[in-house]
């Protein structure tokens, strides 16, 4: 059945109100089961041996001593994971990242793995594995990795996107260029030109639940995997591909997920656990330690970015150019490209250009982190906007409003924008009482904007109505932020029943069609769309059953507020039938009543936000304290405002952490110095004020309710909002994030000296 995804303005009964989440009770009582909370009869414990070197050739792996240890049931190296990926280099990279093949490419790269009867035995066995390494030169800094003298990480990589085609391998995997207009002409027109260079350090998604799974493979090739993931269907396909299993025979169940933020879109120990289980023919449970999580999973790119803006005296920007260098770890990515696409997305700049360099270094394989690549580009561009405003003698918010992108603006990545909300967020910021609140000594206020595309993707949803009229909603997008509540609300809205009568569940991979990851802020957007369509199909069935009961044509039945109503002439005296009444008789009217939908939910609405940040800087120590923070963002339509606010607040806080103290610190030896929550400093409760939020609703024309994704955009503005606030508090422009106390104090000293 074809469905129309167009937005229809209507009054809602359930959507837009606040309901408690269906998983709440399990989560507050400790009953909710996460990745590490499952067990199976005869289960073994799996552990990974990791490289202590940043870059090394693996000369020999001797497992014979470990094999002899009592209680050790299987040991694997890359030889137990033969390359079945064919021509798919992306899959080959995933395989090599899961288990080193001849070379260790970063500190923490998996080299071998053990499954044993218990934790202690597995740990002992790891120590008995003898690996002979030959250390190789390494590079961990993005700018250094681009130098012609840098050690080459992969001989097979030649820079894509440059002419003539390179003849020598390089750590630069690709060059991207994007933009509109004539950049030289634009700068020639400018009265004022500002330029600045920026650096951002590598950060980790920092989910509190480490990666964990329970794998069981049978000799006949059937297998089960219980795992904490943002997308169990994608994990199924990837694991099946890497291990040579049949997709239909690998059942993957998504556990409750203890945070992901992009970091659980990628497999790490899961293929290893399956391989260990296959070799031992016993279930294998693997739980990563925090140290492993930091050293070997997740992080986002560190970057180096140059921005140049040219403007007329009246504040109109005539030209903008950015050069963005992003490292993707030891494997190629397209992170700089995403930076290019987002850098100037908030503005209508006739002549703009972004040049991106994707670079390899000896660090863990970069994985998406909430609006991947956008925060760094926004840090650079939004800082430059404030520098420009200062030069122009204009208010920073007015320069933004003067150049803001609107419906009809050409996006820097090409197409013309439909209805978008950036101007509304800026106007809301300008009118917000926060902007007029008085600042105390050493305090400053900064504003910054952010953009993220949001995406849709493949989605499949089942809606089954029980004989008592309650409804099971089976969805395949993992609930990472409260989407079960939102989706149940949507089903209740469509069916015209109470929220309490709908129970949303995340189905396993054998119970539903394929679903893409919960990533790109797509969960509520795309499963919401599929839920609407599934509910509408169920309503068609309900109407048919009512028509049959009444003995009238189905065309004469309407669905109103949870009831079938006879509308045709001459049916006036038929009493309406409730969903419950129809469901109760379903066994005798044609069987179970259900609605299904499989959809590729494209057309996600872009998300824009503007943030206000007040910071107080201790001029003697350089420490910055966030004293007030406000998020204004366009949600399209907030299904459950509680969880929309939660996304705004959480994203802003991650951005604040990045802005102030979070960073990967590598030693000269190329080893990560701070792989723990003590020295990788994510914000703690006492570091923060309340985070105020304002939800704007500019409907997405391509969703029946107008929903846009809301999960990611809120991490984009904070780095620059904090930097701009620090600049206004102290007069120093921080070009290096995080803006940790030593960096701020050094900048203050330089200002005094200058």
């Amino acid at each position, binding site marked *: 059945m074809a469905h129309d995804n167009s937005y229809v303005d209507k009054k809602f009964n359930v959507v837009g109100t606040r309901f408690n989440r269906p998983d709440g009770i399990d989560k507050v009582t400790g009953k909710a089961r996460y990745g590490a909370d499952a067990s199976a009869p005869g289960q073994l414990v799996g552990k990974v041996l990791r490289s202590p070197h940043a870059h090394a050739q693996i000369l020999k792996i001797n497992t014979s001593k470990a094999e002899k240890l009592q209680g050790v049931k299987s040991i694997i190296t890359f030889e137990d994971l033969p390359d079945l990926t064919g021509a798919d280099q992306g899959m080959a990279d995933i395989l090599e990242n899961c288990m080193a093949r001849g070379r260790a490419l970063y500190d923490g790269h998996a080299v071998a793995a053990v499954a044993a009867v218990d934790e202690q035995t597995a740990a002992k066995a790891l120590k008995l594995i003898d690996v002979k390494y030959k250390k190789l030169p390494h590079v961990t800094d993005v700018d250094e990795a681009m130098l012609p003298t840098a050690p080459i990480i992969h001989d097979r990589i030649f820079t894509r996107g440059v002419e003539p085609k390179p003849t020598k391998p390089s750590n630069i995997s690709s*060059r991207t260029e994007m933009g509109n207009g004539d950049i030289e002409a634009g700068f020639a027109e400018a009265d004022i030109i500002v330029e600045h260079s920026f650096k951002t350090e590598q950060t980790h998604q920092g989910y509190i639940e480490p990666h964990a799974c329970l794998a069981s493979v049978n000799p006949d090739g059937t297998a089960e995997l219980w795992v904490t993931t943002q997308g169990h269907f994608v994990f199924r396909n990837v694991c099946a591909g890497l291990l040579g299993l049949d997709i239909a025979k690998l059942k993957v169940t998504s556990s409750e997920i203890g945070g992901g933020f992009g970091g659980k879109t990628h497999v790490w120990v899961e293929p290893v656990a399956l391989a260990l289980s296959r070799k031992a023919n016993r279930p294998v449970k693997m739980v990563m330690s925090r140290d492993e999580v930091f050293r070997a999973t997740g992080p986002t790119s560190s970057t180096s970015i140059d921005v140049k803006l040219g403007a007329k005296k009246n504040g109109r920007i005539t030209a903008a150019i950015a050069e963005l260098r992003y490292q993707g770890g030891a494997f190629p990515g397209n992170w700089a490209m995403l930076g290019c696409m987002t850098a100037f997305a908030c503005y209508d700049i006739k002549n703009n250009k972004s040049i991106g360099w994707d670079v390899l270094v000896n660090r863990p394989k970069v994985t998406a982190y909430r609006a991947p690549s956008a925060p760094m580009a926004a840090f650079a561009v939004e800082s430059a906007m404030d520098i420009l405003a200062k030069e122009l003698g204009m208010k920073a918010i007015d320069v933004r409003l003067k150049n803001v992108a609107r419906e009809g603006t050409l996006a820097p990545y090409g197409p013309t924008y*439909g209805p978008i909300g950036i101007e509304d967020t800026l106007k809301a910021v300008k009118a917000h009482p926060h902007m007029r609140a008085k600042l105390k000594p050493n305090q400053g206020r900064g504003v910054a904007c952010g953009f993220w595309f*949001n995406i849709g993707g493949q989605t499949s949803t089942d809606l089954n109505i029980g004989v008592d009229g309650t409804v099971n909603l089976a969805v395949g997008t993992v609930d990472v932020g409260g989407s079960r509540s939102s989706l149940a609300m949507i089903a209740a809205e469509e069916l015209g029943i109470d929220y309490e009568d709908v129970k949303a569940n995340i189905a396993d991979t054998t119970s539903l069609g394929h679903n893409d990851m919960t990533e790109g802020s797509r969960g509520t957007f795309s499963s919401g769309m599929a839920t609407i369509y599934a509910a509408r199909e169920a309503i068609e069935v309900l109407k048919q059953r009512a028509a049959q009961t009444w003995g009238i044509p189905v065309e004469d039945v309407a669905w109103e507020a949870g009831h079938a109503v006879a509308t045709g002439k001459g049916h006036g005296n038929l009493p309406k039938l409730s969903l419950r009444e129809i469901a109760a008789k379903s066994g005798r009217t044609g069987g179970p009543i259900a609605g299904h939908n499989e959809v590729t939910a494209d057309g996600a609405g872009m998300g824009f936000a503007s943030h206000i940040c007040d910071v107080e800087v201790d001029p003697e120590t350089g420490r910055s304290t966030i004293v007030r923070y406000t998020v204004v963002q366009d949600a399209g339509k907030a299904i459950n405002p509680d969880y929309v606010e939660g996304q705004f607040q959480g994203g802003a806080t991650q951005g604040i952490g990045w802005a102030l103290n979070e960073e990967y610190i590598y030693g000269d030896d190329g080893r990560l110095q701070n792989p723990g929550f003590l020295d990788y400093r994510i914000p703690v409760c006492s570091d923060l004020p309340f985070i105020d939020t304002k939800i704007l609703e500019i409907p997405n024309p391509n969703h029946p309710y107008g929903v846009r994704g809301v999960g990611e955009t809120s991490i984009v503005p904070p780095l620059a909002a904090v930097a701009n606030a620090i600049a206004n508090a102290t007069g120093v422009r921080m070009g290096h994030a995080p803006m940790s106390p030593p960096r701020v104090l050094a900048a203050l000293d330089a200002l005094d000296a200058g």
Partner: protein
Amino acid sequence: MRVSLSSSFRVGNDAEATLEVQAETIAQLMACLADRFPNLREVLSSDVAVSIDGQIYRDDWTQTIPSGAEVYLIPRIEGG
């Protein structure tokens, strides 16, 4: 119909910024481009999205392209 290529796709393919193509769906558009630019085939199979009148389509290649629509070939994005 006319399709515009993001500059990343033009390097090494001697492609104009905007091309005239005979296509009514995204799938047909992709087939045309693959024929015309063999170097782009690998990219087209997995690394692109199509923007039709400002809306980004990453996956649904059955999507029809209205006549007169603004069509852009852009890099495929992913999220976190």
